[in-house]
Structure formats: C-alpha cells, structure tokens
C-alpha cells in the first residue's frame, strides 16, 4: 500500500498475470489470432472506459500529474516526459509477469507473438507481443478521456522495446512526422530505446 503515496497503485501478484496469459492462450485456441486481437482491443477499450475522466488547466499541470502517477495514463506505468510531448515508460508494466512466466512455466506461447504480427499488419506496426496491443489500445482510449485546456489528447506510439531487446518502431512513412511532433531526433530515439520500454507521443488534439 506504500506506493499509493506516490499515486501509483501497488504491484500485482505476477501469478494473476500468468493466469491471465493462460486465459488468453486458451481463448486464442477457440477464436484464433484475429479473434484474440479483437478481444484484446475490446478489453483495453473497456478498461479505459471504466476509468474516470480527467481535466487539467495547463499542459504543465497534466505532465506533473502524469509524473506523479495521478493520471489514468500513469496508473500502471512509470512515465517520464523527455520533452513536452515525448514520453517514455522505463519498464514495461508486463515485465514482472512475463519474467515469472518464463521462470515458472517456460517459453512464452507463440500465440502472443502471432497476434502482435496480426495487429502490426492490420492496425499499427508497434507491437512486439499481445501485451502491447492491450497497452497501446488502452493508452489511445485513455488519452481521449483526458482534456487539457479543454482539448482531448491524441496518443501515438513511436517505438516499443520488449524485455529481450526486440524492437518495433513506427513505420518510416509516419516516423518522421511523429519525431517532429515529439521534438526528438532519430539519434535521440535510438538513445531512448537503450533504457526504456516505450517511447510515445502525447499532444492535444
């Protein structure tokens, strides 16, 4: 309960995360990769829709809330602002669960990667595995529930790095524009990807 002082909720027991992974794997065996993809998207959208809306007067006020874990966008992850609109997540919120899965159960089921490939082809090319579909869809839906200076937010994923180092970066057609809006260069992106799990953009609509 101590971490509530910092705004972020207490850590989950990784066993619940592992059980959820197995739950999703079982689901995939019934509905296939496309069905699982739809399920994950709907899951993340429902989660965001169940969380309270937020409003802030200024961008600085919002960034402060984000940094302190008081925003729904930082409830589950440790978010840092690199520039006014470029945000990074230091550690994936799924890392503990995945590590425990690898330690106690074995190799991550292939379906988690297969569904990410499906998502990358159909939606955006920034997911390494199923967990990123949840996280990125959640951020997208949650950002629309936040107003800064009366305007809702727009979220874009710039790049993702998984625990094993595998990366997914937004396609070249979008990357230049995203980096410009985020206020970082390609070299800076490379630097950020060394020690962060996600690099993302957040700006008013």
């Amino acid at each position, binding site marked *: 309960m101590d971490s509530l002082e910092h705004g972020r909720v*207490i850590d*989950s027991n990784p066993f*619940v995360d592992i059980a*959820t992974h*197995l739950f999703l794997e079982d689901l995939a065996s019934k509905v296939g990769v496309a069905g699982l993809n739809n*399920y994950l998207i709907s899951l993340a959208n429902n989660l965001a829709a*169940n969380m309270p809306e937020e409003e802030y007067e200024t961008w600085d006020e919002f960034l402060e809330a984000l940094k302190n874990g008081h925003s729904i966008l930082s409830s589950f992850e440790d978010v840092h602002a690199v520039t006014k609109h470029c945000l990074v997540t230091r550690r994936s919120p799924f890392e503990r669960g995945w590590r425990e899965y690898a330690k106690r159960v074995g190799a991550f089921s292939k379906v988690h990667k297969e569904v990410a490939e499906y998502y990358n082809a159909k939606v955006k090319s920034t997911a390494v595995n199923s967990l990123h579909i949840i996280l990125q869809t959640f951020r997208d839906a949650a950002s629309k529930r936040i107003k800064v200076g009366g305007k809702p937010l727009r979220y874009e994923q710039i790049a993702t790095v998984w625990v094993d180092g595998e990366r997914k970066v937004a396609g070249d057609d979008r990357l230049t524009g995203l980096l410009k809006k985020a206020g970082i260069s390609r070299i800076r992106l490379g630097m950020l990807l060394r020690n962060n799990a996600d690099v993302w953009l957040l700006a008013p609509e």
Partner: protein
Amino acid sequence: MLDVALVSLIEDLIEKAGADGVIEFWQRVGENLANRIGKEAYMGWTSFNVAVREGRTAYSIEGDVTPLTDLAITDVDGDVVGYLYAMKQCCYYPTAMRVRYTVGRLSAADAAVAREYNENFHNIAWCNFCVFHERFREEVAKNIAVAGNPLECLLLATRGFDGETRISAKGLSKININPEHVRALLRNYECVYALLMRGARLKEG
C-alpha cells in the same frame, strides 16, 4: 495492468458464457497451467517443506507460502502424511486494490462468479480467482511426489479482504482437523490448504 484488464475480461465473458461458463473456463486454465509446470519429486516431507520455504516448488508461483509444520496430518498409524500450508495474502488481494484505485470498485461479475462457485462447487471462494486457484492447486498436487507418493490438495479456508471467512467442513472432516484451529489461522493468513499423500489412510472425522 493485465490483472486489472482481467476484470473487464471476466465481465465480458460472463455476458457471453454466463458465470458457469467462466468457472469452466477458469478450471480448464488452472489444469493447463499446472500441467505446463510439470512434475516434481522430493525425498520426503522435510525436503518438500524446505523447497516450499525457498520458493522452489510449483506452488511458489502463487507467492509466499508458509508450511505450517506444527500442523501435521497423520494417518491411522500415526505417520505423517501431510501438512497444512498457508498464504498471508491472497494472490488476488493486490489486484482487488489495484482495481479499487484505478477503476473504482471491483465488478459485480467477480462476485457473481464466486457466488456461482460457492453454490454449485465448493463454498470456499471469495473472488473469481479462487475458482482458478483451487483447480490449479489440485492439479499441481497430482504432479508432485513426496517419498514416491503423489499428493492431494484440499483448500480448507479463505478470508477475503472484507474480513469474510469461509471454512470447508468437507475438507476438514477428511483430515480430522478441528475447525477452530483453522479459524485461528485465518487471523494471520488469508488462504489455508492441506497437502497430503494421495490415498493415505486417514482417521475417520
């Protein structure tokens, strides 16, 4: 965040398959997880209990488990055939708190699954995760051999974070342990279970 998203998943599944469908789903997932973890063998109870303390058994995936070595289960000849084990904190407690501090309150779907399970299977669950957890433990027990004997697991008692306790009369009568002993344990633990050698000749309760 996967655990908090799981709550939305349960809500969705209950709409599609009903509470009984969720129970079936969870039980299958519990079996699958136990079987993926695989088999273990120990020389005797001492080595098994040391492994439990050191977090080396399949049960260690749950979190910290305390072997209550002062509460041995004996057979008709007075030989030790098992022990009681307990967890100070329910695996789902952090998730319940995380839901409380992100979404607002635990979904009614969670209680609906537990109620269905209590009425039709075993009156021991305080949350939907107990359904998965009980089956998982039962299946893991089959995969662990102590002194050449596979184990059996009996979930004996639970205490929810709201203070409500459930004690399994069925389980306690099987191992001939006074419910008051277990009630006293619930002051310090949230989940108590027994592991004993499958097929042991126990005294009539």
